[in-house]
């Protein structure tokens, strides 16, 4: 086997030499060394705290930020909704804050509005409660359907079909009918993946 010859001079200057017998430590020196060790460990811990703590604080910053509660927004007129209960999709516009930018009156989400025979209006967030894709209204099946993992939801009640992966039905939103036929909706997003309908704070 080939080898590159190692030079004799590669030994390092400060290589450890055996401690001579007569230098063996007395008890006092041993205690001192112990204290130095404890001190080193403590110092090492202390000096590391500020950068790590500051870093973690910034990392955790998103937990401190709450999504502002959205108010009711005027979406449409009752007359615009088909009387046969066919749902209609509407985009919701509101101001949006993204870190350092504010986007005024931008699309923040979408909803389906569905007029009921009793004159009431159902509103559903289009976000699929399974894993957050957007559901669509399927004319052929008369239901809501998510093209990602094939969840289907009942048109009347929003509940998930028995063989759907979604843990809960579509997220209904609060609706108010005001000023004779104006439809106002409180837009919210909800935590996907769980059986409980929990608003994202």
């Amino acid at each position, binding site marked *: *086997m080939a080898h590159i010859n*190692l030079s004799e001079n*590669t030994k390092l200057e400060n290589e450890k030499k055996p401690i001579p017998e007569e230098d063996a430590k007395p008890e006092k020196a041993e205690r001192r060394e112990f204290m130095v060790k404890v001190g080193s460990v403590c110092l090492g811990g202390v000096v590391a705290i500020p950068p790590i703590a500051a870093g973690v604080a910034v990392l955790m910053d998103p937990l401190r930020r709450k999504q502002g509660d959205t108010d009711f927004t005027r979406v449409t007129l009752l007359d615009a909704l088909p009387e046969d209960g066919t749902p209609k999709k509407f985009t919701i*516009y509101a101001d949006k804050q993204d870190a350092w930018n504010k986007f005024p009156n931008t699309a923040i989400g*979408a909803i389906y509005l569905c007029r009921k025979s009793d004159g009431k209006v159902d509103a559903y967030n289009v976000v699929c409660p*399974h894993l*957050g*894709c957007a559901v669509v209204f399927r004319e052929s099946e008369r239901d809501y359907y998510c*093209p990602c993992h094939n969840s289907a939801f009942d048109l009347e009640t929003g509940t998930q079909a028995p063989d759907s992966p979604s843990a809960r039905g579509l997220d209904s939103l609060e609706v108010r009918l005001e000023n004779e036929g104006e439809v106002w909706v409180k837009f919210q997003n909800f935590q996907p993946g769980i059986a409980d309908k929990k608003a994202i704070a």
Partner: protein
Amino acid sequence: MKALLGWLDQRTGYKKIVNEILFENIPGGPRWRYIWGSALTFCIFVQFATGIMLWMAYSPSSQTAWESVYFIQEEMNAGWLLRGIHHYAAQLMTVLLILHLMQVVIDKAYTAPREVNYWFGLGLLFLVMALSLTGYLLPWDQKGYWATKVATNMVAITPVIGESLQKIVIGGADYGHHTLTRFFALHAGVLPGLLILLIVVHIYLFRRHGIKAKKPFRRADTPFWPEQVFRDLVAALAVMAAILGLVLWFDGAHLSAPADPAERYPARPDWYFMFLFQFLKYFKGEGVLWGGIYIPAFIVGLLFLMPFIGRWKQGHRFNLIFLYTLLGGFVYLTYIAYAKDAKDEEFQFAQEQARKDAERIRVLANAPAGIPQGGATSLLRSDPYTQGPKIFADKCASCHAYGGMDGLGRELKEPQSAPDLKGVGSREWLAGFVDPDQIATAKYFGGTHFVDRDGGNQSRMVEYVMGLRDLSPTGQGELAKVVAAVSAQAELKSQKGLDDADSDLIREGSDLFWDGITGLDEACIDCHGWDGEESSESRTPDLTGWMSREYMIEFIKNPEHPRFYGSGNDRMPVYGEEGTLTEKQIGLVVDWLRGEWYEPVDTQMP
């Protein structure tokens, strides 16, 4: 020279390191089956080299990420090549990692004393998967945005800490700037840092125990250099050729339209995660925890325990079967997922739309106006060519048609009950409208209340047009002039040349609007407004400015206005008043119907 090297060696000890790197003993001589590790190391070198250069041109924020990647891809010297290599090398690396893992297990190189090294290898496998996941989001295109959104929603289902964890991962309650800054820090800082660390330990441990030689030996032992090195480099060449082949075959890495939370997109992960995507479909309700977390965690746990299980002969056999099952499952689920999508018409349609958007955004970004400061998302959002058909299909196509279709090229879902608006405002469209053979067809008023199919109450307009059947040739000629005059009001871009050339004819037509056409009792002006004079009846549309941009916008906002149909409106919704369409959306659909959108000078949009 020798003295200089000696000097350097004395200060660094490099000879010993070089010695260890190059002259490791390979029992039984070099073999092709030992190349996997080196091929992977080569991939990692490729990723670092290309990644750092991409980094120099990339800007992580929701208004600059897509834009900077677009610039790399379309404008910078060899940018498409650089990005293509980085993209496909990542994919190839996943394949090689799996092959490497298979080879290690088949050759029993994961058992004592190499357990720790095997674990480091597994760690590297997961690091590379994490790099793929984080890298997929960075271009901030629709594809990466939606796929990653589903992936991070999986984080949120983790019991107890899920919600907080998700917020920390995506940098807030929703996707935005901080999602990108975080993913980028992970992709270009934290994960590669860990990768280097793990690789150093992995290779160190590998050298410590030596290669797990395949028996029987065919030759005498040899050092690593040069024979095995040569084989490894041939492997690297093959890897590079495969990467370049993929880049050329797929014409570089795809960049879809910029991420738009308001724009629907069929979320799908890249191929190496499709199995997981498919797997998740089988879990109902909160069972998603099993599909997304527990079972994957169990499989990973089992992979880590394999060195211990492999101590027994049956255990090793079990490990092999387990791995082959995993691989088979991977292939099967991936196949099912793609096969389902191939048959899913909705998905295919959505993908076709996404492809069109991706194509169109290139045209817009390349336009003289360029990408605005606010980013490229607004380009598509305010592009009539893109948005017009979508709005039409969504809001108009339940009554109207566009060339017999719904605007997006699909069949109409409901029978057409209002005019076909393709070419509306043009002479051709209007000439068809005043054609007795066409007025009562679905293309014009056939589906409306203006035509009574039982032969009873026709609207006066339909009666009038029916009466044109007996028009003399002179009258026909005059009618064509009126048509030209009314159509000129629309000021269509596509008809500008014609309108300019026929200015005399149009003037004559305008006069005939007042005076009436030879052989007819009534003149147009008897019902319709013209030339600034309002309609004499509130139920007949004023034709001043007919189908001009302003006219159409006002019409769509409120067709019940006396300027238009007044109380005679059929079922056309008052879109502006009801808020079904915003002013901007109405403008977009009008511009699209009028054929007014940006087109590059020399190339024609399909």
